[in-house]
């Protein structure tokens, strides 16, 4: 009897403890994976926090020497000259002008391209054009820089006599070409996501393809389209190489596309590659400039966020 009991009991006990052990191990693995996932998600947050704190810290040193008032109102940006001026506005004007030229060019072309690809192009055309567009996203920006300097500007000079070799128009257009794929591809995705039933409803009312695209599909996809614009604005404002190469690196307080100018990023690259000693005001100035750039893109992103919320359509 005793032996029989043992035989009966032992496997059950074993089984329970075995299951418990498995559960413990499973929980451990689950927790471990969860932690890894959290770490991956937080890496972007940590990076952002680190960047912002360094920008703030280094800018603080800069603003100990230069007053915020001078920074915002001085019309000259000459940190590297003996007679140093620290007015950020010339860099802001250069950044705004090149980005505005780029967007004035890219938003219409990109949006029309997206409408064509989503609503008019045959399956075959779409499957050919979209990968090519996305390939354009992968071209290194330095290539675009020389494209602006050696091709676009000389071409423009044929139509606009007196256009200097270094100007904002050429690089602006080239940045526009660079961001067209972003606008076209992201907008097209948003438009394709509009349910077919909505298009059918429009056609059933006797609308043409064009009317359906403009009056129904575009408003239905507007939040995605605005997201595409925001992405493009951030790219255009942050673009460095094209303007550094083709716009002349001359901080001028001007909004005239024919003038040469420097943008915030072009200035940062110029200083970072120069031989200014760490800790000098000239060196610190790039952090202040970077902070302004970050505030600009942040503003655009927030604006985009709220417009998107306002236009968000649930269907």
């Amino acid at each position, binding site marked *: 009897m005793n032996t029989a009991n043992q035989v009966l009991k032992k496997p059950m006990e074993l089984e329970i403890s075995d299951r418990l052990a498995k559960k413990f191990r499973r929980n451990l693995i689950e927790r471990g994976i969860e932690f890894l996932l959290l770490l991956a998600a937080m890496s972007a947050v940590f990076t952002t926090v680190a960047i912002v704190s360094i920008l703030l810290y280094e800018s603080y040193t800069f603003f100990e020497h230069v007053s915020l008032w001078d920074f915002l109102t001085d019309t000259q940006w000459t940190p590297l000259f003996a007679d140093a001026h620290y007015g950020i506005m010339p860099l802001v004007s250069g950044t705004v002008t090149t980005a505005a030229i780029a967007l004035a060019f890219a938003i219409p072309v990109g949006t029309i391209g997206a409408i064509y690809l989503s609503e008019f192009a*045959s399956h075959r055309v779409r499957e050919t054009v979209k990968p090519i567009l996305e390939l354009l996203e992968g071209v290194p920006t330095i290539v675009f820089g020389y494209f602006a300097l050696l091709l676009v500007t000389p071409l423009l000079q044929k139509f606009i006599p007196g256009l200097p070799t270094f100007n904002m128009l050429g690089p602006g257009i080239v940045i526009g070409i660079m961001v067209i794929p972003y606008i076209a591809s992201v907008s097209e995705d948003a438009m394709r996501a509009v*349910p077919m*039933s*909505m*298009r*059918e*409803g*429009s*056609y*059933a*009312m*006797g*609308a*043409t393809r064009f*009317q359906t695209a403009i*009056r*129904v599909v575009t*408003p*239905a996809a*507007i939040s995605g389209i605005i997201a595409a614009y925001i992405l493009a604005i951030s790219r255009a404002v942050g673009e460095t190489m094209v303007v550094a190469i083709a716009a002349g690196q001359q901080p001028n307080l001007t909004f005239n596309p024919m003038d040469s100018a420097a943008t915030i990023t072009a200035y940062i690259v110029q200083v970072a590659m120069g031989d200014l000693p760490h800790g000098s005001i000239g060196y610190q100035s790039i952090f202040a400039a970077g902070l302004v750039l970050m505030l600009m893109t942040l503003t655009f992103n927030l604006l985009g966020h709220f417009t998107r919320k306002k236009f968000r*359509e*649930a*269907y």
Partner: protein
Amino acid sequence: MVTVTTPLKAESRDLNFIYNGGIHALKGINMPLYEKKITALIGPSGCGKSTFLRCFNRMHDLYPGNKYQGQIVMHPDNTNVLDAGVDPIEVRMRISMVFQKPNPFPKSIYENVAYGLRVRGERNKRIIDDKVEEALKGAAIWDEVKDRLHDLAFNLSGGQQQRLCIARALATDPEIMLFDEPTSALDPIATANIEELMTELRDKLTILVVTHNMQQAARISDYTAYMYLGEMVEYGDTDRIFTNPTQKETEDYITGKFG
């Protein structure tokens, strides 16, 4: 018994339809559509009733490779809406459609109803205002929305959205209105409202409705057609189809033995 001859509004003559890919979805359909009457299409899923309905306003043209054979003739002008020379947009201006799931546009209530007029190029605000009000009244939704005409249509309930879609379809004075299972996404009360509305609309226009709900066909329609596997098995007065079908298949479907 007095026989009143009802004029024909449209008829399909030996209609075949082949989907892109070769599926022969409709086989030699002949069916009249009487003016200011409700004709119901019933049959099990996949029998071709929605396909048939969508031939009337050439919805199949939206997808490449679909093929019609035969005719759908509209009276009194004898236009074959399937003729390659007939502009599908003109067809859709005469024959409007209400879908299975309410599909309002991402616009205000007002703009949804005005849509058909706007795509026709109507610019006169007073004409549009009048038409919108008339259509919303016709769709029995005016009282519910008259104070918020400029709200987004998505804020309406499902039943209200469907009535809005009916108003949208009404605003352009169509001759025929197609309903593709208009109540299948709605609750019973909203369904009852839509059904009542359809019987009211019968005074103004000709209705062709696809329905999965046999009671609905029996309640609202004047004529019923039973379809199965792309063929029209039986067509006749609704009363007769439901009380005394001549075909065994129809009887089996109606009594619930099959389907």
